[in-house]
């Protein structure tokens, strides 16, 4: 039987998930220059100076997130039909479900279109929202880019004649301004404790870097993901929440441990942190006013011109200042001290004392809670089907309880390469073997 053009499907070969299927509508979005730009934004910035395999981009990650979101969405839709119908008003025809699935697929595909060059390394250079002390995030850029640059390719595609999706629905799902409670429920699959974004990048980064730290049982998590009715704190009635069924709690622990290991071994690696710092300063040096253009209509095109290629070109021309030169020559700052991962008050006092002792030798202090890749709160909800109880994962797992009670707040102190030995000597003299 002949199919209309928009019903055709295409496949991308993904090193993590195998074949990822996209429809003609999605392919036309993927072909758009806004999405193709993601081929020129590395997933992990300058990490290849530590892990040489880390050259993958936001392009393949975005396809992967769309794939994982779809698996989660399909599983929850099938396994929690009654809850979704009673709490979110889905009917039995499946029409609303397939429309919302498409909405989620687009949001997942496009959630990173607003990334600045080298991904999170440059996030601190996004400007403040007008009249506030609050910075824009890359999600705000993604949302504005979707609203202003992808309207035609999404809303006018023949496949949209029946669905009538709007770019505003997709954008508001990403920037958290949606007023639709169904969308707000599904939003947790994109930005939550058990989200497709995280699950894809842990697996993908592990694969490309050649480490095993980020591996976990994705299949089991998908198979046990569920929607539950529970009574939120201080509420008078039940509401719908995302959870993992009791049979999946060990897989959920695997996910939490994968986050912890990847954070300690990769994302907050001492040298990677130093390169993020150099990149940030080099970018600030080359940007007008030291910040990226705001996500406003007349500035979006200027923002979109910034990708890794442009930055590398400017660095090659010597326009990155002192820190650009350090990137070029691999003369990164050297760590002279690191605190315990979750320092108690006495370690904070040692840090204060060290700062004084190191004086001008100290050129940077980087804290883990400022990193984009935080370990975060590990309490995934676990639903016990037998008792209808919902409990936090830390109730089931002593390991998770320990991680929750000792959040990662490590501090790393850095000196210039030529001063590193002197810095370490001062640290040794002051603290002996204590961290």
């Amino acid at each position, binding site marked *: 039987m002949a199919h209309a053009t928009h019903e055709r499907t295409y496949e991308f070969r993904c090193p993590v998930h195998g074949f990822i299927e996209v429809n003609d509508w999605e392919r036309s979005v993927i072909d758009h220059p806004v999405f193709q730009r993601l081929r020129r934004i590395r997933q992990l910035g300058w990490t290849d100076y530590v892990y040489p395999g880390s050259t993958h981009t936001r392009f393949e990650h975005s396809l992967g997130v769309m794939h994982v979101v779809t698996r989660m969405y399909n599983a929850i839709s099938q396994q929690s039909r009654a809850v979704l119908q009673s709490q979110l008003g889905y009917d039995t025809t499946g029409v609303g479900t397939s429309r919302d699935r498409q909405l989620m697929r687009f949001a997942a595909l496009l959630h990173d279109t607003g990334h600045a060059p080298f991904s999170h390394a440059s996030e601190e250079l996004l400007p403040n929202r007008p009249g*506030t*002390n*609050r*910075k824009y*995030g890359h999600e705000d850029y993604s949302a504005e880019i979707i609203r202003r640059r992808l309207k035609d390719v999404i809303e006018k595609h023949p496949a949209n004649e029946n669905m009538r999706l709007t770019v505003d629905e997709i954008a508001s799902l990403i*920037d*958290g*301004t*949606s*007023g*639709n*409670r169904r969308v*707000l*429920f599904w*939003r*947790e699959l994109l*930005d*939550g*404790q058990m989200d497709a974004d995280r699950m894809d990048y842990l697996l993908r980064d592990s694969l490309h870097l050649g480490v095993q730290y980020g591996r976990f049982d994705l299949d089991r998590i998908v198979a046990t993901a569920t929607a539950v*009715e*529970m*009574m*939120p*704190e*201080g*509420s*008078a*009635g*039940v*509401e*719908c*929440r995302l959870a993992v069924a009791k049979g999946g709690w060990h897989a959920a622990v695997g996910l939490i441990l994968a986050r912890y290991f990847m954070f300690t071994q990769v994302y907050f690696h001492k040298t990677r942190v130093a390169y993020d710092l150099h990149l940030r300063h080099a970018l600030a040096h080359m940007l007008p006013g030291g910040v990226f253009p705001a996500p406003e209509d007349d500035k979006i095109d200027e923002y979109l011109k910034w990708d890794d290629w442009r930055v590398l070109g400017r660095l090659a021309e010597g326009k990155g200042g002192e820190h650009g030169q350090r990137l070029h020559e691999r003369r990164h700052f050297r760590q002279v001290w690191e605190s315990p991962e*979750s320092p*108690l*008050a006495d370690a904070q006092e040692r840090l204060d004392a060290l*700062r004084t002792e190191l004086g001008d030798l100290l050129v940077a*202090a980087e*804290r883990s*809670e*400022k990193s984009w890749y*935080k370990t*975060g*709160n590990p*309490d995934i909800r676990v639903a016990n089907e037998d008792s*209808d*109880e*919902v*409990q*936090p994962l830390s109730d089931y797992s002593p390991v998770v309880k320990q991680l*929750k*009670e*000792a*959040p990662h*707040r490590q*501090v790393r102190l850095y000196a210039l390469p030529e001063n590193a030995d002197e810095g370490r000597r001062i640290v040794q003299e002051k603290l002996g073997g204590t961290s």
Partner: protein
Amino acid sequence: MNDTMWHRLALLTALVQQAPQQRLGRTALMKLLFLLTTVRDVPVGYRFRMYTYGPFDSEVLSDVDYAARLDAVSVEMERYPNGYGYVIQPGSAAQDIMDRAQPFLEAHQPDIDWVTETFAPLAAGDLELLSTIVYVDREHRVSTLDEIVSTVQEIKPRFTSATIRQEAKRLQETGVVACSA
């Protein structure tokens, strides 16, 4: 250097300290911090986004856990049918943590007084409604009270439109909600 973390820990400790009976639920603390950063622009770097349970930033939970590790607060879990919650109270090192950010707390004492006197006595469910109204007013593309009411009711259907309107008007009268019509 790196004062923001101490500002956050000191701020949440001060909120718990000034709350009625010196205790706050975790949801209530989340919403008070949302109101402080959004309405009073207290610069602690949280990035609240809307979820089915109202404005939320997981960083607040992580900060509460770390504040508990430093004994600035104590956190106890409470179970009830179909759910669970947390009660936060001052810890033995509350004053030490607040001392670390004394100039910051002093500069924002009027904001802390405002949020604890006006909102801390309310139940978590009411705070969830009020913070959702404020989020919709500030972040959504709405310009009238009617739009706020209909959007909030879609997000929080367990509240009647009459209740939402009444609370939105009250917030409007005190200048917390900015929409004019």
